[in-house]
């Protein structure tokens, strides 16, 4: 080899580095161009690969002739369509990304569904509790008295700051004014009724807790129990 490094030598050295996986992006492009245009570049690429393969394993020297294999392969490859044009590849990628985004969108919209569902369930439960307390029996004595009763209109429910349940707009028909007595104080609230838990319920709950601890029975608590008679017995 002469001391002067020609362009061809530089090209072959780059091809050698390419065979080792140690080339730069520009060298890959140049090697591809050389592969297209120069038969000796193709022969060198084959020779370099063959040398490496034979050094690693002599079995690999037994493979069929490289150029004959490539010739046959080219004939078959010529019948194949070009894999993908750049624009087609980009367009396909864009379509795939769009489809992926479309699939994700409904999930994003549903992010609010969870909290709303919980809130709705909570409202339903509270409504059911209040309905079961108010509608069948109505206010029973105690500190809260409804001036009038009748069919109930629906309305929004909220928890009062006092810790007691209030029903805003939950007003019996015709009851534009309700008189309430809370803890000894009376309130006149036109168009609004504050529902108060039956004080007997607290008493009953206290007895139940005591009963669970095992030292109190319901005997003698006739005021809180109801006697039921079946068939006159």
């Amino acid at each position, binding site marked *: 080899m002469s001391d002067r490094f020609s362009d061809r030598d530089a090209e072959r050295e780059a091809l050698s*580095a390419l065979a080792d996986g*140690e080339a*730069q992006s520009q*060298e890959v492009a140049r090697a591809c161009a050389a592969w297209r245009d120069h038969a000796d570049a193709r022969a060198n690429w084959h020779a370099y690969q*063959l040398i490496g393969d034979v050094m690693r394993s*002599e*079995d690999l020297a037994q493979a*069929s002739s490289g*150029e004959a294999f490539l010739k046959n392969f080219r004939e078959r490859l010529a019948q194949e369509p070009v894999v993908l*044009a750049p624009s087609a590849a980009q367009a396909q990628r864009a379509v795939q990304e769009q489809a992926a985004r479309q699939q994700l969108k409904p999930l994003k919209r549903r992010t609010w569904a969870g909290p709303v569902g919980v809130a709705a369930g909570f409202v339903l439960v509270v409504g059911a509790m209040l309905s079961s307390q108010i509608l069948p029996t109505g206010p029973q004595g105690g500190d809260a008295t409804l001036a009038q009763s009748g069919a109930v209109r629906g309305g929004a429910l909220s928890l009062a700051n006092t810790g007691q349940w209030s029903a805003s707009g939950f007003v019996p028909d015709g009851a534009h004014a309700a008189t309430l007595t809370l803890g000894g104080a009376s309130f006149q609230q036109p168009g609004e009724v504050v529902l108060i838990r039956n004080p007997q319920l607290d008493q009953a709950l206290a007895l139940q807790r005591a009963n669970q601890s095992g030292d109190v029975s319901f005997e003698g608590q006739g005021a809180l129990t109801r006697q039921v008679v079946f068939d006159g017995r």
Partner: protein
Amino acid sequence: MTPREPHDPGADDSRKLPDQILSAPGIRVAAVTDAAEHKELVEPIVDVDAALVERVQRGDQKAFEMLVVKYQRRIERLIARMVRDVDLVEDIAQETFIRAYRALPNFRGESAFYTWLYRIAVNTAKKAMIGLKRDPVLTESAMASADDEEEGGSRVENELSDGETPESVLASRQIAETVNAAIESLSEDLRQAITLREIEGMSYEEISELMNCPIGTVRSRIFRAREAIATRLRPLLDTRQGERW
């Protein structure tokens, strides 16, 4: 991957890489040395297979031929372990590369190109053998033994496989002997460089550390070793250089 550092500090200062580039983490660079002018370029090293695949995916059909030439022998040997018929081996190898080419738009580089190609070759060979009503299970063990001796084992069988001729076996032996003789005749530096690269699989960076010389020198030594071997090999390659390529 660590940035490369200058090797052999006192020997060749002109080939040192710039500190500002070397200090950038995760950047693998190469010193491309012109043997005459000692000119140096510093650019990131690319994954050559991935770069070639990308070119094919962009429509450069010729780039795929480079991959074919690179992996043809390994794929043929793999298939030969399964079918033991030289005529079929080449056909199945051709089919493997055609299938790989067709499937290339779907190749996302999650595995190495050769790993992906290997799977295609195994599946193609299995399918071919099912078509020939041969038992692919029997040949799986042969394939496993091929994997075991992937790193340089030598075939010791004396009998010819189907389709092999004494001439083809002799030609193969001549190629192997020529390569070995050419390596023996190399200078110590060149022989060590190409052996570390081809047999030990070391990178240029590792070889430069081991041989205590700049990466550009390693690159140049490996190239000169290859050229010396190729010069002795070309007469055996059944064609004048460039005649049919």
